[in-house]
């Protein structure tokens, strides 16, 4: 395991990783760490710390789906969200009402070029949304009884149905109107918290298969928008599932990666069976599977670059 971003401070951690949609060509990726935001222009081989407004703990990072055109990057720091229109060279801050929220997740609409829509999940203040490319943010928590939101994900059919999912400390919520109003799903209460979500388009049908990673109960899946759930892979996963990532293979089929305490698992059949891809010494905190490599954030060490197979 070659560590390409070596974090000097042992207490530092990598919270999130994000790459340009055109990563194969431009090799641009970002790492949100306790010591700030880092950028690589060579596919994660070398990193440069970006000069954000200050060296704040950066807990989430998102790259615009239209990055090739707009060069927009968003980074969440305590109390605000930074946005850059030049791939991270200069930054603008959007402030939030006090007390300062701590962000757990940040994502943009697949149709960002047209709608400029962003969602940000926070640990104590629910979900915020922006419809003007991150300049202004509004809280959208109607029906969200639990404001400790740990993860959010957009439906693969977002453009048609505006459906968003949110995993919280005590349950799992769904919004059918872009996060404006939320409804609790049938997620089993004893399996909370929901730490991460993967949404997979179920074949040719319009249904979405949801896979949720939990702290102590492995993976759960739902094929009916969260109304009923079944447990997955109970043998191979014992501890917390910290992150899920869906990658498209060249032939259009999907691979799901799961970041667990011991390393990375992968599934080529929408989460039904899992195989161990990588065992990692230390505690992995974030992963970003890319075409030919995996970027992995390891607690206290930094970001490592690994071959994907």
């Amino acid at each position, binding site marked *: 395991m070659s560590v390409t971003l070596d974090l000097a401070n042992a207490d530092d951690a990598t919270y999130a990783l994000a790459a340009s949609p055109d990563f194969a060509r431009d090799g641009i990726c970002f790492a949100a760490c306790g010591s700030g935001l880092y950028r690589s222009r060579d596919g994660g081989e070398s990193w440069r710390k970006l000069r954000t407004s200050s060296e704040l703990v950066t807990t989430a990072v998102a790259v615009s789906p239209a990055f090739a055109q707009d060069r927009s990057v968003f980074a969440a720091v305590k109390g605000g969200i930074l946005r850059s229109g030049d791939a991270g060279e200069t930054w603008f801050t959007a402030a939030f*009402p*006090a*007390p300062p929220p701590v962000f757990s997740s940040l994502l943009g609409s697949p149709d960002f070029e047209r709608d400029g829509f962003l969602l940000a999940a926070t640990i*104590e*203040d*629910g979900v915020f949304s922006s419809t003007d490319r991150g300049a202004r943010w509004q*809280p959208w*928590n*109607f*029906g*969200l*009884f*639990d*404001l*400790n939101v740990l993860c959010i994900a957009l439906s693969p059919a977002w453009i048609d149905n505006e459906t968003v999912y949110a995993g*919280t*400390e*005590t*349950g799992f919520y769904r919004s*059918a*109107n872009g996060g*404006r*109003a939320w*409804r*609790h799903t049938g997620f089993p*209460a004893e399996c909370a918290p929901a730490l991460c979500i993967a949404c997979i388009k179920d074949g040719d049908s319009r249904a979405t298969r949801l896979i949720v990673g939990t702290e102590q109960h492995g993976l759960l899946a739902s094929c009916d928008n969260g109304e009923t759930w079944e447990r997955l892979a109970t043998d191979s996963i014992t501890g917390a599932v910290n992150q899920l990532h869906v990658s498209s293979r060249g032939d259009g089929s999907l691979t799901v990666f799961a970041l667990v305490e011991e390393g990375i698992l992968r599934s080529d059949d929408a989460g039904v069976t899992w195989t161990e891809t990588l065992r990692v010494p230390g505690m992995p905190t974030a992963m970003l599977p890319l075409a030919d490599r995996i970027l992995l954030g390891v607690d206290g060490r930094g970001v490592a670059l690994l071959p994907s197979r």
Partner: protein
Amino acid sequence: MSEEKPFPTQKTYQPGIVFQPEAHRHIGAGINKLVAAIRPTLGPTPRTVAMTRLDDVRKTPEVLDSGGIIARKVIEMGRRDEDMGAMLARALICAQHERMGDGSATAAVLLQAIYSGGVHYLASGGNAMRLRHYLERALVAALDGLDELTEPVAGKDELAKVAESICHDRPLSKLLGEIFDIIGAFGQLDVRKDHSRILRREYIEGMFWNSGLVSRDMITNQKELQTVYEEPAIVIADFQITDPRQIMPMLELAVDHKVEKLLLIAGELSGDAIAGLTMANGKLKNFEVMAVTGPGMNPDDRQDAIEDLAVVTGGLPLLKVTGQNLRDIRWENFGRARRAWASPHNFGIIGGKGDPRHLRRHVSNLQTQYERTDDAENRGRIRARIGKLMGGSATLWIGGLSESEIEARKELAEATADAMRAAVRDGVLPGGGMSYLNCRRRLRPHLNDAADPDERAAYRILYEALAEPARTIYENAGYEPGEVLGWIAQAGNRGGFDVIRENLAECGSLLDAAAVQKMALKNAVMTAGMALTIDVLVHHRTPEIARSPG
């Protein structure tokens, strides 16, 4: 010049008993008279009804287009026998209007058609009790047919379409569609009069109550007349605090636990207690306290608000009934929130730190209570509580060119909002009378199979009555109903005729709240069935008459 007659306040009747066939005929005449006054208001192209004002006959008449309001304002008919029939119809129409906010004219025409069909059958020797029994059985089949046609409604555009089919006011419908897409069936919506000429809406984060700061000295932002606390502790008590010494244990405990901001919600505070809190604000370093009086206009409301506040903030309330006072306060009594704000008239909480599981269960229990209660006032109160707990509210500001326009539009918005809640909760049906026309397919096999003459008559009466709302809508829009029904039959699909666009429409282009349509049908059948079994009318000498409308 003729002399003006005084407004009649009480009338003396001769006592008497009326038997058949007069009883049925006169009840029918009363129903017909009232329904005739309401019939023009049905459909998307309603005509209006002018009505003498009850308080002063010399004033300009009221121009009304709501069946429910018209019925509410009819307090008696001229003839005593007809009056009985009219009042039966009035009770049905008013109940529909109060419970659902829509569908009162539909219920009225259905009642008239079923009753009239029933009377004709009984005149030929049918049995009233058996007819009523079979009508109720036919109702079940019709309701099953409506269930089959019911579709869930989602998205602001579809909701706006539902609103438009109820209120026929496009700008208002657009806003209501957006609002209900966000707040859902139980969300809190305040409809208020505005001084501007336009309609606008506002969303408020968190929950708020109509009760404010006990002292203006506690306002920290004088410009906005508001105090906002971040990460406050919250103490909830339902009793009066008279002695400033009572608050000392609370302040000591708060300071010991490093609380920097404290919101006290108490039943009442005396001047001395308020002075004690104000003094604490000046003397204690890194500590601020503000106090508001407990919300609610009556003990029930106050108790509900305290229960909700406790669930939201996670604090254990101090209650008078348990003999507690502020001297008994423990750390468990302190609730927490991300933010709390208070102004002289309101206070609110954002991000209460109570257990979300407990909050979800509490809301679910309230929803069950809501479904189980029939009392309109109780339902309104429970709905308001659920709305608050959902974590946000909407306000719809109604502007207009004149006070009367604003007032009428506000009333329309409120009635539409009631029907919208039902639509969001229970789904929608094809509008414009189409759902009743289409659900008749479920009656057809029963009609063909029925061997008993009373049973066959019941299915036939309901089958024909179900076409009456559509017929009335077409007639009100200036069409010949028989001709339009012919076009629909020729088209052979499950659609109907859209009188606005003047063409045969798909089911989806006109929408009505399913619960409204089902309740209108159910109440009409029940009332008609009951009226058909009335055999004798008995009149007292001086019947009680309503002193005021409603």
